[in-house]
């Protein structure tokens, strides 16, 4: 019963913590490899039980394929980020043994998040995840921007915590239980759902939108993305988003599935705002990390759109979108990590100019990733956007589909501007780029993956459809 991957990972983490004290030379690299090993072993644990369904710890957590699938995606993200940490030469402020261990703590929190089946256990695991992320964001102690980003993220995060607690207290007051199955039971017994329950759900939705930075709760995102170390930004824009989307889907579909009329409208508004702000805000940015923040907001809007009908194929499309989004984002951030001039990190867009002349392979892969983000066929981003739009049109939400298409045309403009400056502008000063061949190889793999998905989309469709099935088997 208690042999769940989270328990395994926590014990493994404690062992690594003890080992870390006795490692004297190259602490961060050794611990990075140990954490990578632990992530591999946990991945094995997760995949072994992927078809298991079980309610554990007095129904506080539930193990199902949906949760296990998201756990495995989160572990892959974290594994890549730690691998980047090992292969790329970092600032000295990141070279401390704690870095990979704090990533481990936060993914323990995220794994508990996607499998929690109770508002209380959900709250505790969200806190575990966020506390680790606050530390990561402000990890470069000497860097003023990093500390500023840390404070901002902390303030916004605690606000989100308060709102979440208030919402769950309202729900507890009405239902008399915090358990998802009992809330679901209460909803189906009720003739008309009390208004206060909807208010409680809105509070929880607001809190989770703050975490996934859906507009109009996105204000912290550009500052935090720009201020924190690039490696942390790579982590921040992938793994927590997956985890919070898992929570969002589980909360909305399972206990609150009955009042889809109420939360459907809220999600429509959230996704319209996110797509508009994500595409318009990025137009005048000159910093690549800031631009990526707006691009994240835009993608979040797109993903939220798939949840509006609350149907099975919508959630399948979301899962596929999340997988592709992660590969694109990790690829771009791997490049940003390697953008250096005279050993210093640079992140301006004009530093990209003329990249094609010096590094044709890298420029090609990067162009593939940007095109994929813009949703240009036949790349992976196109497939995921197509699936989501398909769902939206099937449910007769035409205005939403029109807004989505218009905003994705606008966002295509700034992605293509990046590609243009890489290929056609004359280089200003050369970057000292990609000295290690591993980054080059990994970047090409990300690019090739995005290019080749068109040949086997059925694999992802079948995988995600069978995963989503488990979520609906509960009801």
């Amino acid at each position, binding site marked *: 019963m208690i042999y769940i991957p989270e328990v395994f990972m926590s014990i493994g983490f*404690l062992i690594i*913590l*003890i080992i*870390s*004290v*006795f490692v004297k030379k190259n602490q961060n690299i050794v611990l990075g490899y140990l954490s990578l090993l632990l992530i591999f072993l946990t991945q094995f644990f997760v995949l072994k039980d992927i078809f298991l369904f079980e309610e554990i710890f007095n129904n506080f957590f539930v193990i199902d394929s949906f949760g296990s699938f998201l756990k495995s995606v989160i572990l892959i993200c974290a594994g890549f980020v730690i691998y980047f940490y090992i292969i790329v030469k970092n600032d000295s402020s990141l070279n401390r043994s704690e870095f990979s261990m704090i990533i481990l703590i936060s993914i323990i929190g995220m794994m508990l998040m996607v499998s929690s089946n109770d508002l209380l256990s959900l709250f505790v695991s969200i806190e575990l995840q966020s506390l680790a992320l606050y530390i990561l964001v402000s990890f470069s102690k000497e860097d003023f921007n990093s500390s500023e980003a840390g404070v901002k993220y902390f303030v916004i995060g605690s606000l989100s915590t308060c709102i979440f607690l208030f919402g769950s207290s309202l729900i507890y007051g009405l239902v008399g239980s915090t358990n998802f199955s009992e809330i679901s039971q209460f909803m189906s017994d009720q003739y008309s759902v009390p208004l206060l329950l909807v208010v409680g759900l809105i509070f929880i939705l607001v809190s989770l939108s703050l975490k996934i930075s859906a507009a109009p709760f996105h204000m912290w995102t550009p500052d935090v993305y720009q201020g924190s170390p690039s490696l942390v930004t790579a982590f921040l824009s992938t793994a927590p988003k997956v985890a919070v989307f898992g929570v969002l889907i589980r909360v909305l579909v399972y206990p609150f599935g009955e009042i889809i009329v109420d939360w459907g409208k809220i999600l429509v508004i959230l996704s319209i705002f996110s797509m508009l702000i994500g595409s318009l805000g990025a137009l005048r940015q000159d910093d690549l990390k800031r631009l990526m923040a707006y691009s994240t907001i835009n993608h979040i809007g797109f993903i939220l759109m798939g949840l509006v009908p609350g149907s099975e194929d919508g959630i399948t499309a979301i899962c596929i979108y999340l997988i592709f989004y992660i590969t694109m984002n990790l690829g771009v951030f791997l490049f940003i990590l390697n953008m250096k001039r005279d050993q210093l990190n640079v992140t301006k867009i004009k530093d990209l100019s003329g990249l094609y002349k010096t590094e044709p392979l890298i420029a090609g892969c990067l162009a593939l990733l940007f095109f994929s983000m813009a949703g240009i066929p036949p790349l992976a981003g196109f497939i995921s956007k197509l699936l989501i739009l398909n769902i939206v049109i099937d449910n007769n939400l035409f205005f939403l589909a029109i807004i989505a298409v218009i905003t994705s045309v606008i966002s295509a403009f700034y992605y293509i501007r990046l590609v243009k400056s890489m290929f056609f502008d004359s280089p200003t000063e050369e970057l000292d780029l990609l000295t290690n061949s591993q980054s080059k190889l990994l970047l090409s793999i990300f690019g090739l993956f995005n290019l080749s998905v068109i040949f086997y989309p059925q694999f992802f469709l079948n995988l995600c459809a069978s995963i989503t099935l488990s979520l609906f088997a509960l009801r």
Partner: protein
Amino acid sequence: MNEYIPILIFLIFAFLLSFGAFFFSIFVGKKSSYAEKNSTYECGFEPFDDSRGRFEVKFYLVAILFIIFDLEIIFLFPWAVAFSEIGLFGFLSMMFFLFVLTIGFVYEWMKGALDWS
């Protein structure tokens, strides 16, 4: 709903009373101010120095480490009281909890967080 009405009445009354006292003293009370009255008052003395003094960051570290063991005590007391009823499972659970805390303690010790200099 009926059982909440006393609370509502209480809230209204508390609101009226506190605001009444506040505004009544503003409008009715006699005002006279002079230099002595406006100066800082600290137990009858002249204030010694600024109360926002700085102290070393090491104190924070000790305070944070203290909180962990403080919480441990909070868990240990009810555990000890209920010990005769919870049996072996309760004993082992607490031992595991203490073991995890001990690992944290060993970590901070080896990292030198407890050395003052």
